[in-house]
């Protein structure tokens, strides 16, 4: 098993595809049909398009605070691809690639960052919890989802996404510990992107790796090249299979990098060197997957150009639709506090509504 072969205490990291697009571990290369490979790459590219457009809209003052994704496509898409439709995902706030892999529509995603709760109402057939802002609080939800699946006899696993900084919170610990105790079918996916806003990872923990933290909870952890989509898929698939087989949780440390700012409110040049960023650009997950596909003759420049152009247009359409109809409907802010409005809410609803109506503000 990979989790045994790649013991984090021995300083090992799983890598299958190197930064230049070479397969360095042939026998570990997952068997993925060619059309699926292309589909995966398209999701990756699409993620990047959506991400960059969001950033652009934000700079133009049309989108609100946004948490860029660039650099983390492989670890999100590779891992999410290992899930089945029935599995559960508890994201943090930077998981654009994972959301898109699971088929969430762009409108929903953009609505969220546009500042409308309707962007957290994913369609009934997609099992993703809303964005969770309080760091690592969602890990416990994943454990609960897994526990429920287990006692209800459902063949479902859960995955939680979080960052390197997320490992410092008490909730990380309690979630890992509970998952260990109840052997829930849960994958903890730590995206170690080296930074938590301005704080580098060695100020988060004195632990050599994040992966080894799993051993404090009676299960295994593995460090994976997070910019290698094959490694990410392979490690997650193994964890998912083990979870399904009743073997309990796994911690995956995806060793990656946030190429952009923390959010659009952040200026990373204040705290990190361009040289560091440039070095990581060389390890770009999209680039290396592209080279691999090109070498296999599955992708080329023209295809890319056409695809990007098509997607850019699609994105623009979606966003302009949102700009026209994406505002929050007044009623909605009262309607979902409880299944049924309480008497005081009914009263306040009427009072506030009248106020805004009188002023033509609705």
């Amino acid at each position: 098993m990979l989790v045994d072969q790649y013991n984090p205490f021995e300083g090992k990291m799983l890598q299958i595809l190197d930064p230049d697009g070479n397969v360095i571990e042939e026998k570990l290369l997952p068997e993925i049909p060619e059309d699926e490979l292309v589909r995966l790459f398209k999701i990756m590219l699409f993620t990047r398009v959506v991400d960059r457009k969001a950033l652009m809209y934000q700079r133009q003052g049309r989108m609100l605070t946004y948490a860029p994704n660039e650099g983390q496509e492989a670890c999100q898409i590779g891992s999410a691809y290992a899930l089945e439709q029935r599995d559960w995902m508890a994201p943090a706030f930077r998981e654009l690639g994972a959301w898109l892999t699971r088929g969430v529509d762009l409108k929903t995603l953009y609505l969220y960052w546009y500042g409308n709760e309707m962007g957290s109402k994913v369609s009934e057939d997609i099992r993703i919890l809303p964005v969770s802002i309080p760091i690592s609080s969602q890990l416990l939800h994943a454990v609960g989802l897994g526990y429920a699946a287990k006692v209800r006899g459902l063949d479902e696993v859960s995955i939680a996404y979080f960052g390197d900084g997320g490992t410092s919170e008490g909730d990380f610990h309690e979630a890992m510990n509970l998952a260990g105790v109840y052997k829930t079918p849960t994958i903890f996916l730590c995206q170690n992107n080296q930074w938590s806003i301005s704080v580098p990872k060695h100020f988060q923990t004195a632990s050599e790796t994040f992966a080894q933290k799993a051993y404090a909870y009676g299960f295994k952890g593995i460090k994976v090249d997070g910019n290698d989509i094959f490694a990410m898929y392979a490690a997650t698939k193994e964890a998912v299979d083990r979870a399904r087989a009743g073997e309990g949780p796994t911690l995956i440390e995806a060793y990656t990098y946030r190429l952009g700012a923390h959010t659009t409110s952040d200026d990373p040049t204040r705290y990190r060197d361009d040289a560091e960023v440039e070095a990581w650009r060389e390890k770009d997950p999209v680039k290396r997957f592209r080279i691999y596909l090109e070498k296999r003759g599955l992708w080329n420049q023209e295809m890319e150009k056409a695809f990007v152009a098509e997607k850019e247009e699609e994105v623009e359409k979606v966003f302009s639709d949102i700009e026209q109809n994406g505002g929050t409907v007044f009623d909605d802010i009262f309607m979902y506090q409880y299944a049924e409005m309480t008497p005081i809410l009914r009263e306040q609803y009427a009072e506030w509504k009248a106020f805004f109506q009188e002023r033509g503000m609705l």
Partner: protein
Amino acid sequence: MPVFNNIQALNYALMQEMEKDPSIVVFGEDVGYEGGVFRATVDLQAKFGVERCFDTPISESGIVGMAVGMAINGLKPVVELQFCGFTYPAFNQIISHVSRMRNRSRGRYTLPMVIRFPFGGGIRALEHHSESPEALFAHIPGLKVVAPSTPYDTKGLLLAALRDPDPVIFMEPKRIYRAFKQEVPEDDYVIEIGKANIVKEGEDLTIVTWGAMVRDTLKAVEKANEKGIHPEVIDLRTIAPMDRETIIKSVKKTGRILIVQEAVKSFSVASEIIALVNEKAFLHLEAPPARVTAPDIIVPLPRGEQFYMPHPDMIYEKINEVVNFLT
């Protein structure tokens, strides 16, 4: 009809409803094998198995956070936090998620779940075991906060909480867990969340109270009755959403109001009730609304507790003061 104390009523209600509703799971520290430090969950594990009633590690945030995920995936979690003072580690999960998941997801994800814990002092317990934090929960939109005062209410309110589509904070007045028994119907009945109970009708003064203070209040009221004073006593039952109608109607009748609570005075549930009657019945007020509460101090260790707990004579005196106030 069985005769139960509050703990037995709790246990009975859980037992009955778990039988009916296989999605209910009950868990917390010492809740499973031991049946809870107050024995509220006794026999549940034996009866329903370790997967539906189980012990947890000591991690309150974990317990509540896990319940969130369980509720989303089809279970109805009933969690016990061992004491009022140990709810604080779970505040982030309660405020940031439990109360908000429905609204955040615009109804896609809802959280039918109950968070139970014993509250209040008077049992000579260690520090942190005697807190009355109801104001902290009541202030949070998206939560419902319930506090029964009798075995009959305990069963009816717990069944209502278990069937509520939204999360309910269920605060159990530990001082009266075993203080008295009462007939509790075997039948299924619920007491509607959000409705207060007029425990005693009267015309001279409205007293609003809840939890363990209901009994102390009734004692003071008896004494007042002997002097020909007849307060109306309202047991709030639900703290949020509050039954404003019942309170206002009573105040319009009596013109006077006194709130009796065990919590500290300032920024409390009593404050809100006073604000409410000001907004809704100002012109009916014939005396300043008054409160009998603990002083604004940290709950003392047991040898000082008697100075903290509202003394029945304080209630009695305040009744007289409010009734005799002349505008």
